């Protein structure tokens, strides 16, 4: 019996560690984008290496969690839901890493008069992710509370959409000094940043159903 509890304890620690890693990854993404926008090259390089490390750690932890949960038949009824949810959490840090790398690879140019909008977009999009991650933690301890926590996620996702639309409008309607290639390039970066909140919303949708299913 103690072996079962030992495995359970280990799995709990790993899940907590995995969620923390994903959360840190999202925070690093935010700081990295802000560093880039503020032209803090050294800090940005640090963030790139940080997110690389965190993403690799998250992948490693996720594999361990999957293996152990299936090997010891833990949560037989909800294991597929839990695994798929953790997969979505992993997608958050994956996409954060990919997007941060795009800044490093494509070196987009952000004109001064639109930089603040991109800062707001990044902060709001990341906020959606930072709201959904505590809900993931709560799902494991108090699933009844999960649905109440998700309203913030939907709010920030909606706000992100609005800011993104306003950026695109500004790019294509007001900033005549930019050529089309620059405009499209910047629009893509708005989409990349926005994708964090989209993923957060997908995770929130899944969590909402899972919380309903698990409540006895």
């Amino acid at each position: 019996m103690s072996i079962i509890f030992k495995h359970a304890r280990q799995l709990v620690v790993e899940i907590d560690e995995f969620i923390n890693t994903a959360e840190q990854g999202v925070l690093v993404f935010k700081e990295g984008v802000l560093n880039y926008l503020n032209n803090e090259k050294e800090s940005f390089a640090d963030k790139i290496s940080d997110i690389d490390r965190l993403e690799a750690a998250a992948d490693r932890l996720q594999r361990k969690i999957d293996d152990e949960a299936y090997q010891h038949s833990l949560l037989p009824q909800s294991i597929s839901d839990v695994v798929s949810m953790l997969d979505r959490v992993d997608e958050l840090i994956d996409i954060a890493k990919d997007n941060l790398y795009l800044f490093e690879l494509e070196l987009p140019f952000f004109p001064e008069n639109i930089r603040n909008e991109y800062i707001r977009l990044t902060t709001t999009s990341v906020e959606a992710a930072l709201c959904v991650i505590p809900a993931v933690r709560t799902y494991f301890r108090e699933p009844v509370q999960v649905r109440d926590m998700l309203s913030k996620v939907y709010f920030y996702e909606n706000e992100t959409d609005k800011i993104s639309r306003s950026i695109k409008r500004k790019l294509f309607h007001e900033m005549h000094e930019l050529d089309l290639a620059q405009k499209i390039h910047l629009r893509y970066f708005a989409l990349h940043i926005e994708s964090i909140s989209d993923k957060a919303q997908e995770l929130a949708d899944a969590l909402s159903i899972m919380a309903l299913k698990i409540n006895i």
Partner: protein
Amino acid sequence: MITLLFLTSGLFLGWSLGANDAANIFGTAVGSRMVRFKLAAIIAGIFVIIGAVAQGAGANDTLGDLGSVSTLGAAFTVALAAALTVFWMTRLSLPVSTSQAIVGSIIGWNFYTNNPTDLGVLTKIVGTWISGPILGGAFAVLLFMLLQLATRKVRLHLIYKDVITRVGLVIVGAFGAYSLGANNIANVMGVFTHSIQLTPLDFGWLVIGSKQQLFFIGGIAIAIGIATYSKHVMNTVGKSLMPLTPEAALIIVLAQSLVLFIFSSQNLSNAIASIGLPPIPLVPVSSSQVVIGAIIGIGLYKGGREIKLNILGSISLGWIATPIAAGILSFFMLFFMNNVFKQEVGSIEIKRILQSETEQDPLQNNDPKTYHPGSLQNDSLVNH
């Protein structure tokens, strides 16, 4: 050797009981994949034997009051009729009641041998068929409410909750198997206790009487039934009636185990009587009915939307069909045993026949007489 041959029908019934009723103990646990079938079968097998030997006598006496099947041939036939009924219903994946099958079968014997059926005892038994599921439902709702309260108070991680529920299912399942053995061994071996007398085994510090030996053998038959044939029924009980969470599964098994224990514990009955309350009748309870009562209890508590009424209907049909089918089968099998195989199946009181016969009939008499049909070739008796 002949005793062993006659005992085979009881062993078959025990096997059927194990195949079918273990689902009521571990069905929800196995169906919800919280406990592996292999582990469930081992635990149920061990504890059902312990329960049968340690606490099986109380319910057995009640069943004996309904009809004291006095000959080995009759005991064989009555048990076989019940076993065939249970086996047939099990093949249809219906959680059939062994208690009802054996009661129907004994009443078939009463009819065949013209022995009166004690309506008081029958009422007591049928009463538990009604109170068992109601009590099961009440216990389930109460325990479910307590569990919900505890879940809200203690914020356990989902993984810990899963492990605790799993361990709980195993412990409660062991208790349930013990209670099943104690309560239902009478269904398996009860009809043989009057006709088979085994030499007591004296170990010096422990003497195992004839009944206990029979119960031990019956317990082994139940355990074999669990190991070999209960998996399919477990999945039916676990998945078909209502979708169950593992926590609900734990509650259902516990509620059912408590009901079975209550109706088989002599000590509890004595304790209740000692404080001036009416003693609890020690009666073989239909574990199928109790578990379904518990599931419905939780279903109703949760709003009743999740109960699949069509499955409930087919299960209820099984309840009615079981005693009737077993009774009719028992009656006709006794007829064949008696008239084709020339085996004594018990005494026939022929008062009713005597009253309808003419004055010239050599059997006519003012007093009821008892004849042994195995030794008679009277046409009037063949009508039975």
